[in-house]
């Protein structure tokens, strides 16, 4: 029996990290995002605040989090990323403040059809990591008579930065194996054999398997509950494993 090579070990380490990531992932990214939109809405005295994220293929904006008027209607809504005011924010990476959108009949109609709430004024800022746009944070009908309201675009951008940090942390856990090995690679001296080996291993680590990720998430949930629940869960999972092992005896252990 030969010893596994360093390359194999690194790849195993990467896979292990990715598979276990959901178990150690900080809880409540979604709750944190909901809290960001809700606190922005309250601070600005706005009727609504929403977060839309750009899909991986950059074709759509998906409204993932919303608070205030029309929140139920907007959550889950998918819109083409290359259109309208939010589309402008995505492609330009610039923020925009509109005091009266009602003069644009096309905008008013499409928003009413989608969410049931037609705003008069809106602020929209990009959620950015460096120069990369992750999404758009939008505030509807804020109280613009508040002292300091003229600085609201800059202030809303601070909320967008918080949003970007939350999203970045969450996504790092989704691909923990690669993130870990890439960090090792950059810590090792550039151009060294170790750095090259680690980088090679990083690219070969597959992205998370959805079923395994869910299982690890459930384990993490149990870990936060009491010892009795954990013992019950272990017994149940063992039963399931034994049963399925008997049903498909050819599967590797």
């Amino acid at each position, binding site marked *: 029996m030969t010893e596994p090579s360093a390359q194999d070990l690194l790849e195993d380490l990467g896979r292990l990290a990715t598979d276990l990531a959901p178990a150690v992932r900080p809880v409540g990214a979604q709750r944190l995002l909901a809290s960001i939109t809700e606190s922005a809405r309250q601070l600005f005295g706005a009727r609504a605040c929403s977060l839309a994220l750009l899909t991986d293929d950059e074709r759509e904006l998906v409204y993932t989090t919303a608070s205030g008027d029309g929140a139920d209607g907007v959550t889950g809504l998918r819109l083409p990323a*290359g259109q309208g005011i939010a589309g402008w924010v995505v*492609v330009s990476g610039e923020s*925009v*403040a509109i*005091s009266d959108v009602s*003069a*644009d*009949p096309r*905008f008013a109609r499409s928003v009413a059809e989608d969410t049931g709430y037609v705003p008069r004024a809106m602020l929209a800022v990009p959620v950015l990591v460096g120069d990369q*746009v992750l999404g758009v944070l939008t505030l509807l009908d804020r109280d613009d008579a508040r002292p300091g309201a003229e600085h609201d675009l800059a202030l809303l951008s601070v909320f967008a930065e918080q949003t970007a940090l939350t999203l970045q942390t969450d996504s790092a856990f989704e691909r923990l194996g690669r993130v870990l090995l890439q960090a090792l690679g950059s810590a090792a001296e550039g151009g060294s054999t170790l750095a090259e080996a680690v980088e090679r291993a990083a690219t070969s680590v597959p992205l998370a398997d959805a079923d395994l990720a869910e299982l690890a998430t459930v384990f993490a949930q149990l870990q936060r509950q009491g010892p009795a629940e954990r013992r019950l869960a272990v017994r149940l999972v063992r039963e399931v494993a034994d049963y399925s092992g008997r049903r498909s005896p050819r599967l590797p252990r």
Partner: protein
Amino acid sequence: MLPPVPVPDLGMSRSWAFDGASGHGVDVAVVDSGIDTAHPAVGGLSDGVALHWDSELQDVVAVEGPHDDLFGHGTACAGIIRRAAPDCRLHSVRVLGERLTGKGVVFAEGVRWAVRSGCRVVNLSLSTRNEDLHSLLHDVADEAYFAGVVLVCAINNVRAASYPSQYAAVVSVAANDATDPYALDCNPSPPVEFGAPGIDVEVPWLGGSSIVTTGNSFAAPHVAGLVARMLSKHPSLSPVEVKAVLRAVSRNAVPVSGR
């Protein structure tokens, strides 16, 4: 209101700079999301080009001819310029489309297209924070400057370094709260050099509509329009002289005679 800024008293008043002028004969490019030619506030275009990144060719491709404005932003900028310089020749250089890939180089190539096609004024209500583009855009800004082309750049609405508005070769603009379109301010503490109306400005938008909006994006075209107006009356002014006139006609400028 910005603090007073002393400027040499060379007789360059607002009326010397702009009176009787209309932008006639001056070509102005709007490097943006395209322009809706049919909007009554735009009053027609001379020509246009739409640039995009071709991932197969790994290069920027330019398609000359009419195109739409996908967002309304370019139409808004064009309308503001048209108000200040009703007889200028407007050119649409569309650098923002539906895809994000390669947008930095597309942006740089769009400015180069405007310079090559003989525009004297280029409005850039766009900027990038991507440090990798710093050197490329710096070269583009210098090329424009030496070709006698005035690049008017909006600074980013958020306080972060963005390009090309940070460069000395361009005219950088932020919004002030004035309503008079001639109400410029000059900033004694650059890199933002000028203030122009950009708060609650009524601008043309998509589908023949108009909206009321705020941002440095809408301050820059006020200056671009005034520069076009100035160049139609004083065509030999270089970019540095244009800047000197803009300073001299600012609201907070204090003329100082030389003895």
